[in-house]
């Protein structure tokens, strides 16, 4: 297996350290070229984002000094930054890669960006040939695991920012936001951000009301919206389905009696008020009115917190999923080690059988088709019976850490050719592609004999 991971991330190092390790995308190919020339490193890739710089590598002989690479490449002195660097080997490395891709190792657990970043790093490494066989399998599997985690847990389904929570709530009230109108009261940054999110989800018309009319006009222009003089505020607010308020007013500007008028003007169609001003712009009494929903900054924050809590709960399930996938990956890798031996054993005996048949064919004379079939069956039966025990032993040995000894013994006993590199578990695949299921990984010859 021989996988290695080394790096710094948001858990082990502060940003001033991480930035020293960063490898810009333009310099990745060069860094990868250096990495693969390091002694023992067969394949490698580098993931460099603002939260992590990590090197994934595979060695041929089970040893590689990635620390050496870090010192050489970044020009660090021996021991410098050592306390910030983490390392994983073998199954721990596999698990780490799975966790990173599934966003379980992220600062905001469940965020989707990291998967894209890993995929990008993988694409670059593949393009320069730094990733080609077993590391490829690991990454392909990691992408499949990430997809599984997203599909089978709700880790990424809830919003964890104020603006996205506002959108989520608006959608809970109005369904699709298509064609809905938004009124921005006050022209602050937060208003703008929330409006951008709402527009991205389909909101159409934007009205902006601000005490300084010029600022309203400027903001309205950004969204192709309509600026409205502040003295017409109460007449025009009922036009909007969603009202975002963030003025610097010292008192509430929307009170219950206003709400009643709005509802009357709208024939009781629901309204969603988002109050991000402190002190608050909207009297909480408005929320008591049938059809008006008021969320202030604390309410939104509370939703964010509860979603984060949900994510943490889901993360536990996701971790279990990852553990299971690591076990499966291990089992596959071990089977892959014995497969070449089984295949060459079968080929070897088949060659012997054919040769012996050819040798005696002259003495047998002309055989009827039935006799021909009987001879075939007889000889095949014999070699299958002979192969049965070695194959089952090899297969059970695959689950044993000492499997290499058994493989050697079988090879010696049957005088098989020196071991060829294991065939890939699955053909090199594009990201997102599912790794072939177990059956596909076992060559047909092995399958053929499984009935014995």
């Amino acid at each position, binding site marked *: 297996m021989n996988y290695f991971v080394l790096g710094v991330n948001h858990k082990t190092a502060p940003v001033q350290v991480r930035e020293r390790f960063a490898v810009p995308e333009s310099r990745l190919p060069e860094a990868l070229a250096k990495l693969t020339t390091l002694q023992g490193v067969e394949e490698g890739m580098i993931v460099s984002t603002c939260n992590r710089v990590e090197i994934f590598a595979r060695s041929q002989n089970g040893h590689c000094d990635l620390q050496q690479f870090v010192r050489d490449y970044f020009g660090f002195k021996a021991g410098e930054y050592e306390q910030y660097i983490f390392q994983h080997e073998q199954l721990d490395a596999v698990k780490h890669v799975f966790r990173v891709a599934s966003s379980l190792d992220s600062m905001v657990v469940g965020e989707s960006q990291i998967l894209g970043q890993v995929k990008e790093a993988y694409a670059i490494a593949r393009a320069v040939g730094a990733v080609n066989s077993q590391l490829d399998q690991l990454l392909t599997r990691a992408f499949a695991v990430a997809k599984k985690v997203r599909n089978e847990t709700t880790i990424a389904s809830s919003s964890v920012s104020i603006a996205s929570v506002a959108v989520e709530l608006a959608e809970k*009230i*109005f*369904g699709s936001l298509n064609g809905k109108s938004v009124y921005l009261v006050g022209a602050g940054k937060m208003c703008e951000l929330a409006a951008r999110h709402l527009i991205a989800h389909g909101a159409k018309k934007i009205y902006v009301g601000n005490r300084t009319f010029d600022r309203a006009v400027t903001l309205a222009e950004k969204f192709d919206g309509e600026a409205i003089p502040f003295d017409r505020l109460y007449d025009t607010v009922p036009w909007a389905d969603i009202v975002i308020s963030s003025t610097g007013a010292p008192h509430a500007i929307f009170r219950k009696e206003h709400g009643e008028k709005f509802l009357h003007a709208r024939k009781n*169609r629901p309204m969603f008020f988002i109050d991000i001003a402190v002190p608050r712009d909207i009297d909480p009494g408005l929320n008591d009115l049938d059809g008006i929903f008021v*969320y202030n900054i604390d309410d939104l924050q509370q939703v964010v917190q509860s979603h984060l809590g949900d994510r943490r709960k889901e993360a536990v399930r996701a971790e279990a999923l990852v553990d299971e996938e690591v076990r499966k990956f291990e089992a596959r890798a071990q089977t892959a080690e014995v497969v070449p031996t089984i295949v060459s054993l079968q080929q070897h005996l088949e060659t012997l059988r054919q040769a012996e048949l050819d040798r005696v064919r002259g003495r047998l004379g002309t055989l009827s088709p039935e006799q021909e079939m009987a001879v075939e069956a007889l000889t095949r039966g014999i070699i299958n019976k002979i192969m049965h025990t070695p194959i089952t032993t090899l297969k059970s040995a695959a689950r044993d850490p000492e499997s290499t000894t058994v493989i050697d013994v079988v090879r010696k006993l049957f005088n098989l050719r020196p071991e060829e590199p294991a065939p890939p578990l699955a053909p090199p695949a594009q990201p997102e592609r599912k790794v072939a299921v177990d059956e596909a990984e076992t060559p047909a010859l092995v399958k053929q004999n499984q009935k014995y």
Partner: protein
Amino acid sequence: MPLLWLRVATVLYGVGLIHAILMLRQRGERSGRIAAPAVGLGMVFHFVSLVETAGLYGYSELVTIRHAESALALIIALIFTGLYLRYKTASPAALIFPLIFLLTFSSALSQHKVTISTSSIFGGWILFHVCTLVFGYAMLFLSFVSSLLYLVLSRQLKMKQASSWASRMPALQEIDELGYKALLLGFPFMTIGLLAGSVVAEERFGASFIMDPKVLLSVLMWGIYLTLLYTRWSAGWRGRKAAYLASVGFVVSVFAWGANYLSRLHRFIAP
């Protein structure tokens, strides 16, 4: 045999009911896997039971109270399936399944046999009366369920703590539109259904049929639904007020349906 199928369906709907209750208590994850196929199978048995009844005893048998109950349950189950497929949510099950179960249960238990003299020239009228009313009842029940869901969801949005049951519901406005459409669709069916019934009753029993409890309750129910529609049109009533009114309408409609057991007239026993 039709009765056996109906009883099997009742048991299967029971599974759905149990799941709906577990879901309310946020514990329906496992039962969900059994509930959906159980309800689906239940509907198949239910359908077979109705078809077999019609095959064995003719369509006139379907207009008896018992089978009308059974047909109403099946229509409601179909509507629920439609909602489930459209909105990918089983949240309304908590409100819908008790009724489906009760209707099939009562229909599967009921031993009494009410026969209608099919020789009556009004046979067609009665069939029409029953069909339109069963559909009307189903639609009005749907609008009642919608108004309750609307109330629950809007309350949760106001309290700022959505339970997982509520968070799986469709959006507030979608629920609202659904209820309104059901009301719009159900009301005309109910109106012509009641008119057809009145024509038959007038012919058979004369003007005195008005005083029958079933008739009075039906008229009251019709009035409530008219009010619901009117307040919606004129003032856009939604949420609390609409839900209260719809609840009163539902209670009256249950009594109006149940009045079959009181009304001599509706059982075609001459007054």
